[in-house]
């Protein structure tokens, strides 16, 4: 089995073979490879008990999030054949999108479309779980799109304001 694994800026190539619950894997990064043998047992849905030598790890996987040893990794696993597809990224032009940091409710909109704003000026106030968060302008500019209405609810990552 072979997969490409992306974590932070890094890209690892993983090749492994399975015998029973023994897994022999080679992790290579920028040409250099390290071989490793582990015993993998799925103990609960998405929960793996991994023994590497005597060392015992409990690893929890939910979608991209991998938790182990009190740390959380955000890992993308990509089938080499599909790898290219996932290369997309945001092309950075002059525009700046202000997105909702969490699912919640828009309690106040402090600017209007077309308005020019200072850096750090408040744009929108979002509330979730009784916590208000004021979205500030990351830089001076003009509001070219305003998708936020007071009283409306929003999802995490939803674009509320676009500056130029």
């Amino acid at each position: 089995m072979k997969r490409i694994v992306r974590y932070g800026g890094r890209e690892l190539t993983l090749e492994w073979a399975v015998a029973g619950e023994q897994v022999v894997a080679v992790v290579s990064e920028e040409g250099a490879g390290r071989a490793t043998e582990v015993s993998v047992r799925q103990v609960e849905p998405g929960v793996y008990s991994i023994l590497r030598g005597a060392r015992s790890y409990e690893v929890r996987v939910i979608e991209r999030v991998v938790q182990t040893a009190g740390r959380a990794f955000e890992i993308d696993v990509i089938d080499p054949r599909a790898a290219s597809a996932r290369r997309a990224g945001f092309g950075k032009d002059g525009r700046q999108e202000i997105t909702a940091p969490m699912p919640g409710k828009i309690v106040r909109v402090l600017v209007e479309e077309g308005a020019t704003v200072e850096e750090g000026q408040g744009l929108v106030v979002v509330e979730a779980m009784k916590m208000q968060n004021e979205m500030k302008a990351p830089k001076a500019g003009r509001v070219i799109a305003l998708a936020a209405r007071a009283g409306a609810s929003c999802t995490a990552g939803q674009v509320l304001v676009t500056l130029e």
Partner: protein
Amino acid sequence: MFRKVLVANRGEIAVRVIRGLREMEIASVAVYSDADRGSLAVRMADEAVYVGPAPSTESYLRVDRILDAARATNAEAIHPGYGFLSENADFAQACEDSGITFIGPSADSIRRLGSKTAARQLARAAGAPIVPGVEEAVSDGAEARRIAREIGFPVLLKAAAGGGGKGMRRVDREEDLEGALRDASSEAERSFKNGEVYIEKLVVRPRHIEIQVLGDRHGNLIHLGERECSLQRRHQKVVEECPSPVMLAYPELRHAMGAAALKVAGAAGYYNAGTCEFLVDEDRNFYFLEMNTRLQVEHPVTELVTGLDLVRLQLEIAAGQRLALRQEDVTWRGSAIECRIYAEDPDRNFMPSPGKLVQLREPSGPGVRLDSGVYPGWVVPMDYDPLLAKLACWAESRPAAIRRSLRAIGEYAIGGIHTNLEFFGRILADSEFEAGRLHTGFIDDFLSRTAPLGHSDDLLDVAAIAAAFHATQERAAVPAVASTDSRWRAAGMLELLR
């Protein structure tokens, strides 16, 4: 004693009260909004009554619907928990008017203590020290500026009816005053239906220490010692402990502050469990801040150290019983630390993180108490405060309690939403924390002087293998049962791959 009690709350505190009722063989009635039909409290209660849509203003804050639910189920008393209607004098009054016992102080006591400004006047009159500041609510920016100039920046804006940091703002520069006042007031209005805000002097590097008091309806009043709650973020408590490290060094401070707390409670004719909050400066001067006229979120650390059951005591007091306990009967054994597990993302400025709790493994074993309001598969609603559970660990000494807490945090796994679990792992392992050098700015300092946990490539490899394995699981199935020899079989392949 009551035969049936309604719990006018939700989440972990509703579960806590339901447990207490069951242990007293009192039937429990939960109330629930649309968001909470499947909540742990509804699952555990003897009865459950629907009180409206998700927004608390349409359900948990609706006095009429709560009272209807109590009447419909013939509940004899209502336990308000904390937050929501717990410090609403009109609600307490409405309960009594409809012949239902409010498990809390008298409406009159709530009124006299509910507004911080009134409470501070009462405290000063009773001879308890208070923070320099102005006791009248301020409305317009001009007045605010005048007062702030008088007592000097930095100042603190606080909601008069507030609690839990809502409607609270620190203001360091005059130019920020107006905006902060507007936000604080509107947040206060939204949270407490009372936009009143006042201004006070900010004590530098203070400890936040509170005293638990307990009084019956016959004038008996005692204190159960302190809780140190200095670890806060956005004025929201995060870690609480008993005893306070400063009291371990200066035991007499417990008695001095206890005496001050009893003065305040006594002056307010207080009964039920209540909490006097103080700021303590570096010279151990203490200033009364406010009194919370209900069960405190962090009551478990007091229960663990004193061996008392505060919920049961509340019920006995509400039923008119006399306190069997005298001040000299109260003893403190060992040390307890509580961590508030919130649905929030420490890596993204602690943004709330509602959503589905896909995986859950809860800690247990010696000295571990978990007061949780969630279960695997529960969808954490975005409509309420982000507290998922309280992890309270007891041990013979503070260092042992810290290590036990770290052990329990290591066992605790929550998947599907972000939580501050890992953050607690870092805080409790911090040498400043272990040294007990705490103050309300501790967490901000901590965040600025420390970095998130690093990791070895070995650990990354293990994580990567698990992720890849999980992703391809359907095809490369993991056997449900171990095959004895497989353990040795694969050795050869290692060569092959090298």
